[in-house]
């Protein structure tokens, strides 16, 4: 009685921005029935940054001082799932309450969002595939590092495995296909590229991403008050560090004295 072990290689959909076929309905979101205890509010039918921002804003207002009695919110690329107890509040009342929140939000200015710095030691033993990426792009390894760390990526959602951030916005000139032969074990913290996607393995798992570096940060700590470091809606900035700096941060983390660098940014 087992489902066939699925490969732990994330099969990610590359966020495509500005594609013509995208249908965005920020003003008139769709409310999808998802059983008696959940409703999904959908802002677009494709991956779209404006829709994702609308998801984050609604989540924020429902979780912070919202009057609606809910169990939890689950933000994804272009929709927000809201879980509730139908014996306490009816689905119709939840939908009405959400519509009121949306009306209220539409009158407000842009929100702030958080940006986290992820120190990465590129290349060497931590990033054995950086040469593949450099060859594929026809540039030097140093240039791969520069391009990978130059742009702030956007975390559209967390999913697939605990703490895995679906990131969009990587410089597409360093896009590289996955490895033909996936590795059976990849250390948690490894930073990789798969097609147009970049990502960080939160926990040890098998996978076929081109590994270009590793962060000493722990992306998923079950016993911590906040188990995941990156939250949906965060900006993610990769910061190149040396092997020595990596080791320093690692020992600060072991001692429990490392504070991740998270800043507030106006949208």
């Amino acid at each position, binding site marked *: 009685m087992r489902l066939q072990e699925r490969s732990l290689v994330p099969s990610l959909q590359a966020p495509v921005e500005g594609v013509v076929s995208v249908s965005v309905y920020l003003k008139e979101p769709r409310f999808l029935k998802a*059983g008696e205890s959940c409703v999904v509010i959908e802002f677009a039918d494709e991956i779209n940054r404006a829709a994702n921002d609308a998801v984050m804003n609604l989540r924020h207002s429902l979780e912070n001082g919202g009057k609606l009695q809910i169990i939890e919110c689950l933000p994804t690329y272009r929709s927000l799932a809201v879980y509730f107890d139908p014996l306490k509040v009816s689905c119709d009342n939840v939908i009405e309450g959400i519509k009121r929140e949306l009306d209220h939000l539409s009158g407000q200015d842009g929100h702030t969002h958080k940006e986290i710095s992820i120190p990465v030691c590129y290349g060497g033993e931590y990033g054995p595939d950086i040469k593949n990426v450099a060859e594929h792009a026809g540039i030097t390894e140093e240039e791969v590092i520069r391009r990978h760390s130059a742009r702030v990526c956007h975390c559209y959602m967390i999913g697939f495995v*605990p703490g895995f951030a679906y990131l969009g916005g990587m410089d597409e000139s360093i896009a590289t296909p996955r490895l033909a032969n996936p590795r059976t074990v990849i250390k948690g913290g490894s930073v990789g590229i798969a097609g147009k996607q970049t990502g960080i393995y939160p926990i040890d798992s098998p996978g076929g991403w081109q590994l270009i570096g590793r962060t000493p940060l722990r992306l998923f700590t079950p016993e911590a008050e906040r188990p995941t470091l990156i939250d949906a809606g965060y900006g993610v900035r990769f910061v190149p560090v040396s092997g020595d700096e990596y080791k320093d941060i690692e020992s600060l983390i072991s001692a429990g004295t490392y504070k991740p660098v998270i800043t507030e940014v106006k949208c």
Partner: protein
Amino acid sequence: MELEVIKPGMLTSVQDLGRWGFQASGVPVAGAMDLPALRIGNVMLGNPEGAAALEVTLLGPEISAIGSGLVVFAGAELGFTVNGRHVGSWNSLLLNDGDIISFSGPEGNGCRGYLCAAGGMDVPVVMGSRSTYMRAKIGGYQGRSLRTGDVLKIGEPDLLWKRTDGFTLPEDMRPDYFPDKPLLILAGLQEDAFTDDGIRTLFESEYTISSESDRMGCRFEGLQVQHKEAGADIVSDAIPLGAVQIPGHGKPIAMLADRQTTGGYTKIGVLTPASIQKLVQRMPGMKVRFAEASMSEAVEELAAEKDRLEKIKRLRASWVSRAGCTYSARPLSSHFIMTVNGEKYDVKCEEL
């Protein structure tokens, strides 16, 4: 009391009502597959509804009691036995030091049950829950299913635990796992992604539970449910408990306790709570049919379940208050019936 595992059985793990509140971090809810059975087992012992228990799958474990305590096996009849005597499901009893729990095998009315103990399984709470999510080794007993030699601590029982001995769930309150009725689906989510013919196929044909089913999902074999031209893939979104997902191969998969938080396949709707319970007790090879439910039917099922639990709480309160049974300790944090001058009073005590 502590429980020591002599043989672990096919798949035995600590589960409660699930790890809610962390799906946004990609953490699956997990929890008991048969939630109503766990709740009933707990209230029969005077536990909070969500106390952790051992989820037993098909072939049960062998366990030895260290110290004394109160237990009940809630769920399908898997041959729950104590010291060689067949006790069966829904019968609470006292265990004494050295007593041996074993299971003689499934008796044909389901495949999962919960070994509940007064006080609950006292494993560490991780992200608000004691449930085991085995794929990421979170929660439960060291993040995994039980093995020989594991010793589980039991929490502090209700003060009237000894008087609960012998409390049995009346026949008419026990779940009927295999009624001759279809499983109900509340249509929604990506129902627009399927052709009319496809939807008719789902609701008019018979499906067989595949052997490739587990705590994550139940796969069905049968006729393919046809998608419209846009196909079966969507931009990943949330997967609620009981969601009926239909990938490109056209065969439905019901998403269960250990489902991933999000996924990229079309979902035609969500099974109602009572239908999820009936599904998780069915074994591979069994046939099912689906029918469409209304929102009010689904909510009504939850209300009926809640009523049943309240009735069981009162029955237990009567049982522990029965005549010929004296009680001298301070009745803190408990629930019983007291008769004063011929008037019955429902008494709930809490320590302030």
